[in-house]
């Protein structure tokens, strides 16, 4: 249809306007990206508190005191990515369990060799049949509530859904398989937290693009799965008949151990005295808990049985869950 000349002029002006707008919008995006990059580069010096990539994402991570992650990935692109897996009863989950993850991450990243990208809580199944172990469904729910405020720690209930108890090494193998079969552009942190996928920042989207360009991910690119545990687990390696030597060997050679100390244990001495562990000592990271804290789930269950307050020993939402259902009131 023929357009009248006035209308035609208007349409042409509109098109030109839209094109200019598009260019302006594109430019402003570029400026934002450029400014962000400049800000990150400027703040690579440790003296500047850095707005890490995380602060720019939609869901601001609560309570994360770390600030140099994005900068470090610029400084040293060849860090080993690590995923921490913690197996346990989590009966119930406590602040100290969550602290283990934070301590482990700080410790590993402080070496400059690692980047911890994910934390997984894997509650044990009911087949474990430990005294006082409440249903896995509850323990899993509580763990999820506890991990809600974390941007990188999540819960995986695969182990808890198995009919029989599984050896730790089997759980490790399962999760490593999961990591390897993951799509290259899947948000690494997102799997356990439905609906809370974070936007990746430009640095990591560049990495993703590079991965896609290079084809299927190389083995060395994949995150390394490491077992996170307390010193008591390490000590349990010494209990006759409790662990198969080949399982211990596999854990410390193919995976790795991050072991958080508790009062009264000496992990370094234990490793020193073990011919099985000593060759893999570089794969066993001993982390000193600098806050003297022996509060355990056992202690919390006892307090609950006696009607004592456990507030501030575990996250409030977990406490609310326990109180609503009257959990842990009897042996």
């Amino acid at each position, binding site marked *: 249809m023929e357009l009248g000349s006035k209308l035609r002029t208007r349409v042409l002006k509109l098109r030109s306007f839209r094109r200019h707008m598009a260019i302006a919008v594109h430019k402003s995006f570029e400026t934002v990206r450029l400014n962000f990059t400049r800000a990150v580069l400027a703040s690579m010096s440790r003296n500047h*508190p850095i707005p890490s990539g995380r602060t720019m994402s939609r869901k601001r991570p*609560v*309570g*994360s*005191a*770390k*600030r*140099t992650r994005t900068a470090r990935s610029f400084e040293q692109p060849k860090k080993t990515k690590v995923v921490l897996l913690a197996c346990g009863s989590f009966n119930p989950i406590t*602040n*100290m369990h*969550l*602290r283990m993850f*934070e*301590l482990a*991450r*700080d410790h590993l990243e402080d070496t400059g060799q690692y980047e911890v990208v994910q934390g997984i809580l894997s509650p044990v199944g009911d087949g474990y049949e430990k005294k006082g172990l409440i249903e896995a469904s509850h323990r899993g729910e509580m763990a999820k509530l506890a991990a809600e*405020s*974390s941007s990188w720690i999540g819960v995986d209930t695969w182990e808890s859904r198995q009919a029989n108890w599984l050896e730790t090494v089997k759980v490790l193998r399962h999760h490593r398989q999961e990591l390897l079969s993951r799509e290259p552009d899947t948000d690494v942190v997102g799997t356990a937290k439905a609906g809370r996928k974070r936007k990746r920042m430009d640095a990591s989207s560049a990495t993703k693009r590079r991965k896609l360009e290079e084809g299927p991910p190389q083995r060395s690119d994949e995150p390394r799965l490491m077992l996170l545990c307390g010193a008591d687990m390490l000590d349990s390696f010494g209990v006759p008949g409790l662990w198969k030597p080949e399982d211990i060997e596999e854990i410390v050679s193919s995976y790795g151990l991050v072991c958080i100390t508790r*009062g009264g244990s000496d992990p370094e001495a234990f490793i020193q005295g073990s011919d099985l562990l000593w060759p893999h000592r570089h794969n066993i990271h001993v982390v000193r808990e*600098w*806050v*003297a*804290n*022996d*509060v*355990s789930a056992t*202690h919390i269950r006892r307090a609950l049985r006696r*009607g*004592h*307050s*456990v*507030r*501030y*020993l575990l*996250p*409030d939402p977990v406490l609310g869950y326990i109180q609503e259902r009257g959990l842990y009131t009897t042996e």
Partner: protein
Amino acid sequence: MGRIPLVLLACGSFNPITNQHMRLFELARDHMHHTGRFQVVGGIVSPVSDSYGKRGLAPAQHRVAMARLALHGSGWVTVDDWESRQPDWTETVVTLRHHLQKLLGQQPSAADLQMPHSSLEGSSEPPQLKLLCGADFLDTFRVPGLWRAEHVEELVGRFGLVCVSRGDLQADRAVHESDTLFRHRHNIFLVREWVRNETSATEIRRALRRGLSVKYLLPDAVIDYVREHQLYTWQSEQRNKDAVLRPLGQQGAPSEPLNDS
């Protein structure tokens, strides 16, 4: 019922407030309730004023704000900034007197005291105010010049102490080794948390300076506040570095230390 209504007052730097500070209140409340003689009706966090002169002390307005954030969800513990607003450092006993007067002078209504309305009903006993503290607090009585003898007497005689510690007998020993404390031992309640649970604010500040995580040791809201205001840095820890702690400066020559063992 005849239970004595009891309010617990904690004085301190709260620099910053931690989960452990809030645990003290929880433990104390459980303990005092289980004696059968008390009904804990309230808790007060009273941050010290800036003129205290302690090293690394963040400005009072921030310490008060963080405490309020931390206790936001608590049904019974509140923050009072009277002490922090005083022009000079206030002796503990003076703070206690102020709060007791406030407690006694008020009509026992829920609105005034922010407590459940039923808590003061049916009790013929006047409410009491006791100082809530940790075991190391008892040892400070022995520091020369830090306490006036008559204040210690009033503190444990007139008010009373609720002292939370690990089960390591440190507090018991302190009471045993002081005649004043021993004389008032029935007004000193020793609460034990049998597992180690020591989150010191000093270590928290150190971790914050170094960019280490303190998540799960204090409420997320407090951590966010610290980051937003960049409160704890190497520079902030230098504050009051060469200053004399105000109580020592104010009280002049050291009085007799409470070493009457």
